[in-house]
């Protein structure tokens, strides 16, 4: 059971990463001294921003 959950979780992470790459979603802003960093959903896409 835990193995199945691990696989589902892992595949979910990869899918999320792929979607983020294809749709330009940023998980967080890595710019130094930025006040960004908290991801949130905005408009039509997952967006990290100020």
């Amino acid at each position, binding site marked *: 059971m835990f193995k199945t959950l*691990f696989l589902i979780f892992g*595949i979910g992470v990869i899918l999320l990463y792929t979607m983020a*790459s294809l*749709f330009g979603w940023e998980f967080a802003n890595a*710019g130094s*001294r*930025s006040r*960004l960093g908290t991801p949130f959903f905005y408009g039509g896409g997952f967006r990290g921003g*100020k």
Partner: protein
Amino acid sequence: MSVLKANCPSCAAPIEFQKGSTIVLICPYCRSAVARTDRGLDDLGKVAEIMDSESPLKLGLKGQYKGQRFELTGRAQLRHEMGGVWDEWYATFSNGWVGWLAEAQGRFYLTFYQPLPQGAQVPSFEHLQLGQAVNGIPNQTPLMVTEKGVATSVAADGEIPYKLEPNERSNYADLSGKNNAFGTIDYSMNPPWVFVGNQVTLEEMGLGDARPVKREAQRVSAQGMGCPNCGGPLTLTAPDKAERVTCPYCNSLLDVNQGKLKWLKALKPPPSPPEFVLPIGAEGTFMGDARFKIIGAVVRSVTVDGIKYFWHEYLLYNPMIGFRWLVHSDNHWNFVEPVNPAEVESGQIYGTGATVTYKGKKFKIFQDAPAVVEFVQGEFYWRVEQGETVRAVDFIAPPLVLSQESTKNEVNWSVGVYQTNADIEKAFGVADLPKPWSIAPNQPFTGGFYIKAGFALLGLLFLSAIFTTLIGGFGNVPLNQTITLPPTTSATTPQTIFSQPFELKGNRNVRITANAPVSNSYAEFDVDLINEQNQEIESLFIPIEYYSGTDSDGSWTEGSQTQDATLSSLPAGKYTLRVEGTWQNFQQPISVNVKVEQNVARGVNFCCAFVVLAILPILALIRKFSFESRRWSESMFGSTSGGSDDD
């Protein structure tokens, strides 16, 4: 020779040699072995009656092997010098072949006489060595000696294709090769006769429907044949195969000879009372749906560095399959089956680093020590003795353990498969077996899945990164403009300026980089991305500060003249940047280079996904290393090799 009707020279009863290949016929009336010769019939003496057996075979049974029909026409029982008997059935084929079908411990070996090529000869019995390859025997695979011994003809029935002398003793050597090849050298002839063939199944011989003779366990009555020492009644589960039985009432070791019991000795009490967790007589299911009964239990020990380690072995019996073992050590369990020695590929098999290969799998040496029988209970198919010692060498490839047990006359290999407590509880329908307290030599590491699956997922992540990078292409720069903010009245009064309009594409992240030539001062910019279609604003804050100087440690710098901020994708369309700045040297204008990029390759998403996916496999790797260290700390050949492929 042809069919011959005659009268028994011993009792004058009518007898008939039905098969042309028959040399000896056992008179069904007086049990004389009658041989036909050129001069007539010879009475070779009486033979004992065949001992009861649960063999699925019987005289007259018809089968088919390699397209040729055959009939079982004769049977002889031979006694092994170490105890125990085996059956040899004679299969007369429709095309004239005569096959020898040996049945021992539930296994069947079909062999045929194999004349040796001109000039070829086999080694003499005295010079034959266990493990030696016997060259000169025409066979598809090389054959090696796995056993040599002395057989005694004790009983017979039907028609026998050779001159069977009652109670005749003869030397023999058993050979085995890969792919179940089997052979025997019969030294009762001069020169010795060689028989080669294969281990076969009943199905391969068209005898798959044959069933063992069903009967109740033979109960030896207290009055007639109970324990000769205390008179207690005994029950034998495999009376035709049992050689030794212990009396549970007086702890005597008894010899079994054709159903007769003879007191041998009182068993010495073991160092501590054996606590067999499974009772004699318990039945368990293994190998799919085969039911095995526990008919004997042994306490064995090895002594390593002066310390004695004990374990229990249960002898399992199934009339169709034969004998198997269940080994119980430190509350770990192994189901053990015999292995054809020729299937084990070995070079140097003793000492540190030794390995053997079985069925393509490499096994590492784990233990090599004399194993001693400390105590026995139940019945056994060999003449078991307290103190019986063999050299036991264990090789592991979890969840398997390959064991070699050798004496001067015999080398046996067996393979054990690790069983969990749950497996044993399910097999025997019991509950709450004591839990293991250590790592067993061949205990599989159960976290291997998380290592393999985890690294497979990480591989997929890399592939995804490559794929999306190729699909998305490299970044583009919609805006790269230098703007100048005029002087202001104070460091907190902002100046604002707009960039030229530019196009942003959808589904691409956006990075805005600001570069200002500040030196030992700061500048702060609030940057708004204004969508010209709907006037929606996305705001960013980009602070810049840069300081430098020299001190006793030399020159130093702090901060940077360039900073950036990154956004998720915005809706495609035309945008303008509104840059609102404050800076320390407000009396001077400040030039700011603003660059807007899209499709920026950033590792943060990848790093986050990588870290999340790597946590579990890394934890599993750490656990595996610790697990393997504990496993090999118990070995005589301590190795911290963690590379065992155990899942």
